[in-house]
């Protein structure tokens, strides 16, 4: 990798990914071993195509677009939990993905075990978790339920503890999908303050939201996705203006 003055932390180049329209259709063995070409199959569509952008360390990026235009897919590509069918996605730093954050939690284990498990799976060592454990529990406000099986928590509590864990990962890149829609207003505000804290600490943020207010609050740069293509890459205010002009409700 060429050393520029500030190397980008995320490099997306001509990335494209396609999904099957009909999830039930079966594939043949031939398909599996035929390699990844630019074959267009009738039952598939490109969720994203020819998307290219670089992200510098410390940037706060908001992803804008209507439902089903590839926002979450883009986030998953950056989180490297799916791979592009063409082009490349390079992520050069650790990522704390606030995507499906409760996914790693096991119903039958206690809150305590779950904290160690999830943080551990995201690369934290036991000593590091020990050091942050009290902080995580204090943030999530569920200190009384430490030894309760996770399944007995309310859905709000589940999201709270999950957010508390993932947001304590000392990773330079944070991805936020619309997870914060859950939880009461006070806790949401707390989460937002935590994100601002992380941003102030020099983190790179990748934020997907439908809330114009939140986007303006956190982000400086906007990516506008429409029909699987990146149609605009500009300061967030300009991106939101165009989005409102095309799809927004007239004020």
């Amino acid at each position: 990798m060429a050393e520029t003055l500030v190397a980008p932390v995320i490099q997306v180049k001509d990335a494209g990914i396609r999904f099957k329209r009909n999830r039930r259709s079966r594939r043949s063995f031939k398909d599996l071993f035929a390699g990844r070409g630019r074959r267009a199959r009738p039952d598939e569509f490109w969720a994203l195509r020819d998307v290219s952008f670089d992200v510098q360390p410390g940037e706060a990026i908001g992803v804008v677009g209507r439902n089903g235009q590839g926002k979450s897919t883009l986030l998953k590509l950056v989180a490297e939990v799916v791979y592009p069918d063409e082009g490349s996605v390079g992520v050069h730093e650790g990522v704390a993905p606030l995507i499906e954050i409760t996914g790693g939690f096991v119903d039958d284990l206690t809150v305590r075990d779950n904290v160690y498990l999830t943080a551990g799976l995201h690369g934290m060592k036991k000593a590091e978790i020990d050091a942050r454990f009290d902080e995580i529990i204090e943030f999530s406000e569920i200190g009384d339920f430490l030894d309760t099986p996770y399944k007995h928590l309310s859905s709000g509590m589940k999201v709270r503890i999950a957010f508390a864990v993932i947001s304590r990962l000392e990773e330079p890149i944070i991805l936020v999908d619309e997870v914060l829609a859950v939880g009461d207003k006070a806790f949401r505000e707390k989460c937002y303050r935590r994100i601002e804290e992380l941003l102030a600490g020099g983190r790179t943020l990748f934020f997907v939201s439908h809330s114009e207010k939140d986007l303006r609050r956190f982000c400086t740069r906007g990516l506008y996705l429409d029909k699987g293509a990146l149609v605009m890459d500009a300061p967030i205010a300009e991106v939101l203006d165009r989005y409102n002009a095309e799809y927004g409700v007239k004020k």
Partner: protein
Amino acid sequence: MSASVQSRAQSPASSYRHSLWLLTTRDLKVRYTTSFLGYFWSILDPLVMAAIYWIVFTQIFNRGTAVEQPYIIFLLTALLPWTWFNGAVSDATRAFTKEAKLIRSTKIPRTIWVARLVLSKGIEFLISIPVIIFFALISLGTNDPAQLHWQVALVPLAIVMQAALAFGVGLIVAPLVVFFRDLERAIKLGLRFLFYASPIVYGLEGLHSPLRELVALNPLSGIFSIYRSAFFPAELNWFDVAVSAVFTVVILAVGFIVFRRTVPTVLKEI
């Protein structure tokens, strides 16, 4: 609070081990905290099976030659490893579907999702070994005392071969089941067939040609013959072991290729 923004440098191998161990202990913890009998369940299944076969073959069919005494030891030395293999492969059919949420949110190397099954079932196998010791001690008071031979030193070799074989099969099975859901049931059926095609209730040395050659082609045969040779040295046949080793290497290689080719599609499907 530390505000350092730096990635924790960890070698890929050590972070692989770290994640693998976390998920394996999670599996075992879940299994042992959610059921009252806990550990006992890991040994109960092979124990009941062993009791059934022991009754059928020694009491009903009145079978048993000098070589295969005590028959319960003969059974268990292959049945316990079989329980490991069977458990790992049948769990591998659900390796991706059962953990879909977690797989969608972490980017740890995907082979871990198969490896953890082989490892956790392997640990259950190891902690079930005292059952064999228990019966061996009991047999000391009978007319056919079990005798341990130097071949017991070969058991680690059998464990390594079996782990590699189960891992290879798992790497093939796990992604393909995502595309072909029917495969899950086909695998169950195949495993039941494989049980009788492996020297578990019978011994390799008691078979006649051409059945003997056919069974020897089963990669489990050589592996089981090593376990068995600890008490029944006549069962050990290096040719069978070599056949197993070759098959294991081939299956493992095919497993890695299939897994690598299919994983990007698997991640989109789950």
